[in-house]
Each structure stands twice: as C-alpha cells, then as structure tokens.
C-alpha cells in the first residue's frame, strides 16, 4: 500500500469510528465551554477583566480540551489489538499515524474552532482579535495533537497512562501556548501578531513533518 | 534589616545542605537494598539448586 493510501485508509477508518462515538465530540465541546465558563464564575463578570483574560482562557481551555481527547488516539486500537496489527503490517506506520492525527484534528480541533467565535463574544473580545484567535488556534492545534500523539504513544497501555501523558505533554505545550495566546494579546494591544503566528506556523510545519515519524517510533518502542 | 537578610542566606544554604544530605542517604540506602537483593536471590537460587540437583533441566537453567 502506498503512503498516501495508508494515510487515507487510517483517516477514513478513524473518522468512521468517531462517527459511531459522536458523544465524544460533545464531551470535548462541553469541556471547552465549561472550562471557559469557570473563569467568569471564579473572578466575576466585569467586562474589562474578561476582555483582558479572554484570549488566554480560551487558549488554555482549547489546549486542555485537545489534550484530554488525545489518549483515545491510540488506547482503543491498543486495547483491541488493532495497533499491534498496524505495527506488524507492512504498511508504513508513520503514514497510518498521520492519517489518525488528521482524523483527530478534524474530530477534536475543528469543532473547537467552530465554537471559538461564540466564546470570544462571551468574553467581550474585540472583533479585530477574532481572526487572530481562530488563526492561532488553527496553527497551534495540530502542534498540540502532534506532541500529544508522541507522549500518548510513549505512555501506551500503562495503568497511569492518561495522567502520565498529561504530565509529559504540558511542559512541551508551553511554547505553543505562549505564542498562541501571545498572538491574540499582541493584536489586542495594537501590535502585529505576525511574529507569533509565524513561529506557530513554523512549529506546525515541523510537527506535520516530524510528529508522525516520531510517534511511529514511539509506538514501536511501546508495542514491540 | 540586615539580620533578616542573613537568615535568608542561612535558609538557602541550609536547605541545599539538607537536599544533598538526603540524596546521599538515599544513595547509600539504595545500594544497601540492591546488595541485599543480590544476596537474597542468590541464596534462594542456591537452595533451589541443591534441592533439584538431580534434575538436569535445572542444571541448565542456573546462570
């Protein structure tokens, strides 16, 4: 099977499986909205404060929502033996992983992006920042998924798996968060967000190229 | 003012000394436990060896 064929196969399979578990998408969205709502509930609904913390809160909530959905990436396949079959098959593992990552982004990040404008309104964010907010999430979420795939593969099948994975993930997420939320803050302050977005873009390209390979290597380490 | 600053110094150096002391204690304890484990497992295997000394399969199994 060619690389593209493998990517398409894994993508189609994971999307089909996700459609059967539509509740998972609602879980992610629900967590996203709830996490964002915690902050006004905790600190009060003053518009200036919400406007000030809005970009950061939305970014952190999106980051956590993506991260919480990631253990599912490999655990289900590992539990029913599909993962072993994938690793042992002659198909290029990185391509299968790439397909899974694309599916994960479509199922997890895309709904979040769709919901982001509504949340931005809830935080009274100026409309000029909205494109930067969505754009930074668009560039940043693939990086989050890529890093999460690597750490999820390393922690595969362990009893403390999901919790361990978050401990491994979060330090590596820091630059993405800094540049992502920073882009929106820059825009809100009247500065150019281009530098932040460029760095995010560079990170996204690096992850697109490397994450499938590294995650495949991590899977081999965990499974073989 | 200056006295309280010296107490900061004392706490910093004291904590560092404590951390190093704890690390050394743990290092020594770990070594002791490893040696005990070696001895314990060796003695267990020696016992097995003597009891089943007739069985040629066990002869091959011991290192």
């Amino acid at each position, binding site marked *: 099977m060619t690389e593209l064929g493998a990517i398409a196969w894994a993508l189609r399979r994971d999307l089909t499986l996700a459609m059967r578990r539509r509740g998972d998408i609602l879980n992610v969205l629900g967590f996203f909205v709830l996490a964002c709502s915690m902050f006004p509930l905790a600190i009060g609904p003053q518009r200036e404060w919400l406007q000030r913390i809005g970009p950061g809160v939305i970014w952190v909530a999106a980051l956590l929502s993506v991260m919480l959905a990631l253990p599912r990436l490999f655990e289900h396949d590992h539990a029913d033996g599909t993962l072993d079959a994938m690793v042992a098959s002659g198909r290029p593992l990185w391509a299968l992983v790439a397909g899974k990552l694309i599916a994960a982004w479509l199922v997890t990040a895309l709904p979040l992006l769709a919901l982001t404008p509504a949340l931005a309104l809830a935080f009274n964010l100026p409309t000029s920042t909205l494109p930067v907010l969505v754009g930074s999430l668009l560039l940043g979420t693939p990086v989050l998924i890529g*890093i999460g795939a*690597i*750490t999820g593969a*390393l*922690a595969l099948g*362990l*009893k*403390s798996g999901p919790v*361990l994975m978050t*401990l*491994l993930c*979060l*330090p*590596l997420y*820091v*630059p993405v968060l*800094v*540049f992502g939320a*920073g882009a929106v*803050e*820059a825009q809100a302050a009247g500065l150019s967000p281009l530098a932040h977005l460029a760095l995010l873009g560079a990170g996204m390209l690096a992850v697109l190229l490397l994450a499938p390979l*590294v995650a495949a*290597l*991590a899977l081999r*380490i*965990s499974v073989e | 003012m*200056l006295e*309280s*600053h*010296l107490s*900061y*110094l004392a*706490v*910093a*150096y004291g*904590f*560092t000394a404590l*951390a*190093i002391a704890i*690390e*050394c204690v743990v*290092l020594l304890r*770990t*070594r002791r*436990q*490893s*040696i005990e*484990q*070696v*001895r314990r*497992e*060796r003695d267990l295997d020696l016992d097995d060896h003597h009891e089943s000394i007739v069985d040629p399969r066990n002869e091959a199994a011991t*290192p």
Partner: protein
Amino acid sequence: MNPFRFAAPPVFYPLAGRLLPWFTAAAVLLAVAGLYVGFGIAPTDFQQGEVYRIIFIHVPSAWMAMFIYLVMAGYAVLTLVWRSKLSAMMCRALAPTGAIMAVIALLTGAIWGKPTWGAWWVWDARLTSTLILLFLYLGYMALVAAIDDTTRADRAGALLLLVGVVNVPIIYFSVRWWNTLHQGASVSLTASPKMASTMLTGMLLMSLAAWMYAIAAALHRVRSIILQRERHTRWVRQLFA
C-alpha cells in the same frame, strides 16, 4: 585498547567504584574553595548586601540542572541508536540528581527573590524555564518508573528525553519572549550590572564543585542500578560472597 569494553557492566562497575572517591574528593575540595572565595574574599554587594551570596548556590545548581539534562540526552542517543544498556542506566542514574539541582535552583531563586525584589516568585524567564525543566525531569522519571519492561522503559525514556531536549531551547526562548513582553523592565535575577571578578571566581568554583558532585552521585547510583539489573549474573553474585 577498545573503549567499548568499558560499556560492559562487569567492567564499568569496578571502574566506577574506583573513580568514585576521586570525584567525591574533588567536589568537596572545590566546594570548600568556592565557599571560601564566596564568603571570605568576595566583597559585599553595594545594592544587595550579603544576601546576593545565594548566587553561589543558585547559579551553579541552575547550570547543572540544564547541563545534566543535556548529558542525559546524549546518553539517550546512545541508548536509541546503539542500544547501549549502560547508557540507559546512566540516564536513570543522572535524573534524580538533575531534578534535585532544579529544585535547589528554584528554591534558592525564590529565597533570593524575596529580599531582593520583594516577592517569592516573579515569573522571570530563567526561573520559569527551570520550573518547566523540573517537570521534564519528573516526567522522565515517572515514565520509566511506570513501565515494567526494562527495555521498553529505557527506550521510551530515551525518546522522551530527545523530544524534551529539542524543546528546551524553544521553551526557554518562548518564556523569555513572554516575560519581556509582559514585564517590560527586567526583573531578572541575573541582572547584576557588574560582577566583581571574585564573585565570578566563586561561582565558577561552586559550579565545578556541583559538576564533580553530580558525576559522583551518578556513578554511585549507576552502580546500584547495575547490581539490580544484573543480579542474576555470576559476576554480580560473586561480588558479595
């Protein structure tokens, strides 16, 4: 003389044992010298008084926390590429010492910050990066502890270290950027306009002392790890008749 001979545990174990006293002695001597310079020779700082002398612990420990992680990453490469068991053991041996160095750096940084800048924690770039580095250490240690299969644990930990080491400069860069954007004027714990050369000497001596100490601790710890891993072999069992 084949250098790879030393990579075999039966050869490395006694070698490490012979080297251990030397590195311990070096650590003690350098520390004594460093403290003598730091307290006996280096002058009182014009702005900070005596409390600045915390840097003789804070800076060496911060450097060592960083350096040990880099060394671990080097051993990680050897583990993955050459499947060297001893390299994996050295990673595990170095990790706790590196983590402790990070903790010392963070705590002394906070203790220095309070009288100097008025707050225990000011989220400056270097301390925040060191905090993240501590989590990278803890993550590594948690991962290898959670995996029962030794080979898988070694290799998974090695891969995690390599991913981490690539990210460390990125993390540092991003945190520094974040810090300068949000704080503007520098609240940097290393902002000393001029350092007397005696202060630098003291810092250097203490850094060397920390380095010797880290090597000694790692050598000691790796010997215990070798004993645990190789406890079924004849050469280990004959050691403690």
